């Protein structure tokens, strides 16, 4: 059965078993301890306090608060608009990422900068920015201030970068040979996009969508000047929480906050799962 053998099976490189990281040393352990204390004091304990405060009134109290007519309306508006905005972002964000990666034209660098503006711009300024084009003094002659469209527009503005920035790197790393192979096998531009490109982008799009949804749900600053915060019409969940705080009613503020936190937490879990999937695909 024996033929000739040169060298037993050898992969090209000589890779050690993957070492995820070193165990903690004394100094790094101390550093981790300090970091965790700080992180707990700043983030974990305060967020726990929100949950504890919300639960003090029992399940009934919590349920009564969040199903209160005005509160429920804010949650419906916030979540509904956030979903709608996320859908728009899925299409527009992917499109923008596509153009930024695959196209080359004069002024592309400027568009790159514009994408990040909503991220760096103070939210109150973002509201003012939108107001100047779509408010009472609009040069376009439209006035959407104090309407639900204003809420939609504000969400759209502040969530602009998320999908673009998650999809862009994945698209840039994408193996164009696979597309060329698909084309050589007779696939049209569209079916190449749908069958070859889109599946590789899906985890990144989903991760960006989750971030953009979470950001929209929690948005406050850009709405202050733009939406008028009209109860039952343009009032969003964050505004509702703030008015509860200002009316010295921390329990109901905490109850609504818990709803938002649950959404954030769900987003984090989704993100964590998706990031692992993106990493596996390389």
């Amino acid at each position, binding site marked *: *059965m024996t033929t000739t053998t040169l060298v037993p*099976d050898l992969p090209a490189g*000589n890779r050690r078993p993957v070492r995820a990281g070193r165990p903690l040393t004394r100094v790094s352990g101390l550093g981790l301890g300090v970091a965790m204390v700080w992180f707990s004091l700043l983030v974990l304990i305060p967020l726990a306090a929100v949950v504890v405060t919300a639960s003090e009134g029992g399940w009934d109290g919590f349920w009564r608060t969040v199903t209160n007519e005005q509160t429920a309306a804010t949650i419906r508006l916030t979540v509904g608009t956030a979903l709608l905005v996320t859908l728009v972002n899925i299409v527009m964000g992917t499109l923008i990422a596509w153009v930024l990666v695959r196209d080359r034209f004069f002024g592309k660098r400027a568009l790159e900068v514009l994408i990040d503006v909503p991220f760096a711009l103070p939210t109150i300024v973002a509201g003012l920015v939108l107001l100047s084009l779509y408010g009472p003094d609009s040069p376009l002659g439209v006035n959407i201030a104090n309407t639900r469209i204003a809420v939609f527009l504000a969400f759209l503005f502040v969530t602009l970068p998320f999908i673009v920035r998650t999809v862009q790197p994945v698209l840039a790393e994408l193996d164009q040979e696979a597309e060329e192979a698909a084309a050589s096998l007779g696939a049209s531009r569209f079916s190449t996009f749908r069958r070859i490109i889109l599946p590789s982008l899906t985890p990144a799009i989903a991760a960006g969508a989750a971030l953009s949804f979470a950001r929209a749900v929690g948005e406050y600053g850009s709405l202050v000047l733009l939406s008028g915060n009209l109860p039952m019409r343009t009032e969003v969940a964050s505004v509702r929480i703030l008015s509860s705080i200002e009316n010295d009613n921390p329990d109901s503020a905490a109850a609504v906050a818990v709803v938002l936190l649950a959404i954030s937490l769900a987003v984090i879990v989704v993100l964590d799962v998706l990031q692992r999937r993106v990493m596996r695909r390389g």
Partner: protein
Amino acid sequence: MSIEISNVGKRFGDFVALDDVSVNIPSGRLTALLGPSGGGKSTLLRIIAGLERADTGRVEIEGVDATGLPPQKRNVGFVFQHYAAFKHLSVRRNVAFGLEIRKRSKDDIRRRVDELLALVHLEQFGDRLPAQLSGGQRQRMALARALAVEPTVLLLDEPFGALDAKVRKELRDWLRRLHDEVHVTTVFVTHDQEEALEVADEIVVINEGRVEQIGSPDDLYDRPANEFVMRFLGPVTQLGDQLVRPHDLQLSTGAGDRAGVPGRVTRVTRVGFESRVGVITDDGQAVTVTLTRNELLALGTEVGDEVRIRLAPESPTTTSTTPAQSAPVSLTKKFASAGGANLTQTS
């Protein structure tokens, strides 16, 4: 004895990287740790350097117990497969790094760096950044950097693994000459048996976390301790239940010749200066015999000829653990139709 490793064990999770390894590495010599990937040789080297900590056992360097010492206290020079060049520092600053850490005087450092750059032939490249060097130059820089601190031992982890074949051969010769000049105790890891046989004074064969054999290149090649070493160090073929080197086999065509195993030639392939003759014995075993071109011409054998196979006297053999079987016809066909230099793995 310069480096004394006793009963060292190391696990990564469930994976046993080293299983109770004991090796003595002599002073002033060039020793190769040879073995397949994942066999534990790099882990052993990293344990000597202190970059990895052994779960059990002891490491002594020049009589000092180094088991618990962090790498910066061991005074070893380490050269990485992918150079580990300090990308933000010039070649000079890279080489000077260890000396700066040791707070040598500026003049001292300058003199020593000049010396080392001359040694590795990078005098004109001192002010460049590593990114502006070729792979071979970067590895020479890394070597100078490791030598700058006058290490007790120099450790090289697959130092030429990332380089292309030609540069690799050059650097290999150059390392051998460098070692003859500098004489620092040197241990290098490689999975390339040719590299180990060519460069090392002493070879430690490591597989699956265990030491298979320690010896000079000649020892290992001529007197392999077991089947693994025999197979790992060069081509083998099986004759009866013996593993032998194809070039230790001789063919004869004389009709009156009674010695040797009878068979029939199934294939003749010429690869450069050597020729490989496929023979199927009367027992149905496929055997490969390597002849020089002249031997083949003298023999004048062709496909279909009756031949006899004999083992040259004093040739190394080991007993195969895979029992000899009759080769099924289909396999014979497959072998006969396989492409020229295409050598199949034994099962």
